[in-house]
């Protein structure tokens, strides 16, 4: 909070009194930013610092956190190879979920933007409608669909396509279905915004220059909506990487994710400092990966122009 106000005041001191309107505008801007900054500090920076502080500590005999001998031991432990398979699972699920969400979300966003007409708002509300129900209940309804005596298997058997239930639940498929379903709206919204902002005249101009519909899409629409695609990919990939609920509820013996490992360290292991360290490492890895990916993408987009 204080940090946000200070620059405005400092600059005010150095500017002449005649510049008062600018100063007021700046103060007003600072005031508008304050709630957001406060929110970030309170609910992001402070918890993050707390996790970091805890991760330096250790457990006393009664499993309470103690900071008596702060050390980086937990970080050394966090690179235990036991976490590799689950980390790879997380990456795999997040990647597939992101690709599917983009592949499914882009045509939907495109269609709503181009052909939604006066129903656009309604259609977007429909995309967001699932958020009105708890994510957990929606995930649970996948179980009702996929279980051995669930809707899908009942239909397959009713139509004589299978005689015995086929195993859908507790597989990679069920996890990917559940995650893609859950994260799809996060992909559609930014895609819609960027597609909707695209001036149709640009596509028309491309067509005038003898581009086929396909060429116009590849050389005009796609590059110009790339920021939306990147935003959609990030908004899907990052939460998907940390997803714990979906693999836990829909997954089987081979779908354990790193988030589950972290949860186990906290609860089953009663080792908060170790869990905090692993969580912090995961966060750094995600953040670094995201920044690298963003930079590469930006360079590519720039190079493409």
């Amino acid at each position, binding site marked *: 909070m204080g940090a946000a106000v200070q620059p405005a005041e400092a600059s005010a001191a150095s500017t002449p009194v005649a510049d008062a309107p600018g100063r007021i505008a700046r103060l007003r801007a600072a005031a508008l930013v304050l709630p957001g900054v406060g929110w970030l500090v309170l609910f992001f920076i402070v918890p993050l610092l*707390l996790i970091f502080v805890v991760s330096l500590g250790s457990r006393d005999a009664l499993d309470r956190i103690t900071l008596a001998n702060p050390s980086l031991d937990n970080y050394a432990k966090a690179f235990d190879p036991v976490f590799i398979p689950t980390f790879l699972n997380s990456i795999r699920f997040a990647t597939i979920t992101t690709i599917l969400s983009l592949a499914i979300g882009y045509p939907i966003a495109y269609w709503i933007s181009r052909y939604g007409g006066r129903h656009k708002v309604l259609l977007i509300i429909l995309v967001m409608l699932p958020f009105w129900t708890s994510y957990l209940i929606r995930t649970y309804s996948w179980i009702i669909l996929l279980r051995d005596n669930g809707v899908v298997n009942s239909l397959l058997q009713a139509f004589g396509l299978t005689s015995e239930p086929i195993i859908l639940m507790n597989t990679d498929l069920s996890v990917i279905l559940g995650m893609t379903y859950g994260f799809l709206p996060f992909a559609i919204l930014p895609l819609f915004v960027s597609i909707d902002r695209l001036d149709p005249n640009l596509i028309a101009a491309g067509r005038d220059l003898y581009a086929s519909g396909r060429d116009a899409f590849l050389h005009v629409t796609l590059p110009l909506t790339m920021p939306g695609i990147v935003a959609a990919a990030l908004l899907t990939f990052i939460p998907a990487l940390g997803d714990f609920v979906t693999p836990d509820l829909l997954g089987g013996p081979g779908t354990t994710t790193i988030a589950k490992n972290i949860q186990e360290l906290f609860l089953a292991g009663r080792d908060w400092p170790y869990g905090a360290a692993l969580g912090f490492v995961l966060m750094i890895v995600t953040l670094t990966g995201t920044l690298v990916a963003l930079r590469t993408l930006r360079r590519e987009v720039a190079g493409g122009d």
Partner: protein
Amino acid sequence: MTDRHDGSSIDLEKELVRYMVEHRISRRYLLERIALVGGAAALAPIIAACTSSGGSASAAPSSAAPSVAASVAPPSASPSPTAQPSPEGALNILNWTDYLADDVIKSFEDQFSVKVTQSFFSTTDEMYQKIGEDGGDYDISFPISVDVPNMVERGVIAKLDKSMLPNIVNLGQEWANPGYDPGNTYTVPYMWWTTGVGYDPKRIKEEPTSSKALWDARWKQHISMLDDWQEVFGLTLIQQGHSANSTNTAEMDQALALLEQQKPLVRTYSTDTIGTMTSGDVWIGHIWGADRFAIQETIPDFAYYIPEEGGVKGSDTVATFTGSPHPVAAQLFINHLLDAHNSAANTNLIYYMGPNAAAKEFIDPAILSDPTINPDQEIVDKLEELLRLDQSVRDEYLSRWQQLRG
């Protein structure tokens, strides 16, 4: 204030799911959440230290740790052992729903003119938060036995005044010296249950008796294990002829090897056995015994057995707290619960066996004749209670568990 974050909120939601599938009993399912108590309590001084000054951060937790047992003693000073101390006018119980028979409470109120107030919780996490570090406003609650040593060491649970508990003689011989509380110094056992194997007889035509049935390739992809390392290793170790609380890493490795063999057959590691069984996904699974009642609402002939090699048992205790506002009434109430008639009344309500040997003659014959609730002595002797293991031992198990699950 910072008590519920990270995994706990997710688990709470999971709890909600459980209600959706019509359950009411198994709280062993919630066991893992208890971990939050120690951690959450410990986090408070850290936050305080972080917000005020850096210097005291290390001092607060470290000084609290070793001296707990000694320093928390003063408020606990148990009621003076006079012949007939008169109870306070009220008693506050923190309880599961449907865990105490109404008659038992009423007879206590009538006999001692004490107004009993019950408050309820639905997860152990919630209970431990309400109890806090000295019991809060509550006189009586029902901690799970594995948590008792930690709560005693933290000075949460008050020592019992045995002179006020003449009915303690009613306890069965096997409860005289439980591992979690030798000599029942701080707690009295309340109810106990088993973890075993449940199956759908429509799918499993034979009648399995061993936990080895969970390794039977014929049920491939239709076998489930609990998502609880201590239970899973416990069952496996017992099958291999070891203690469920083994601290021997070679035995742990053996158990892990056997579990690795089983993994390709397993459909899911889940504590939501009510869901996985009723969905038809799982035909035979490692389940908490009490969950079978909920499963039987969907699969009436659902069967449950305690493995012939022996099994894991768990129990709830009755405890009173160092900050208890009505210590005399609390002791009297614990004695009241130990009464044979009252213990039987509670068993008849909730279908758990109590540790009360004298109560048996008053228990519903249907319960007594159910070998899964009231097993023969021969089986009871083979049951082993999961203990709270040392940190280093727990870490050994958890890392093997994560290796199995990875």
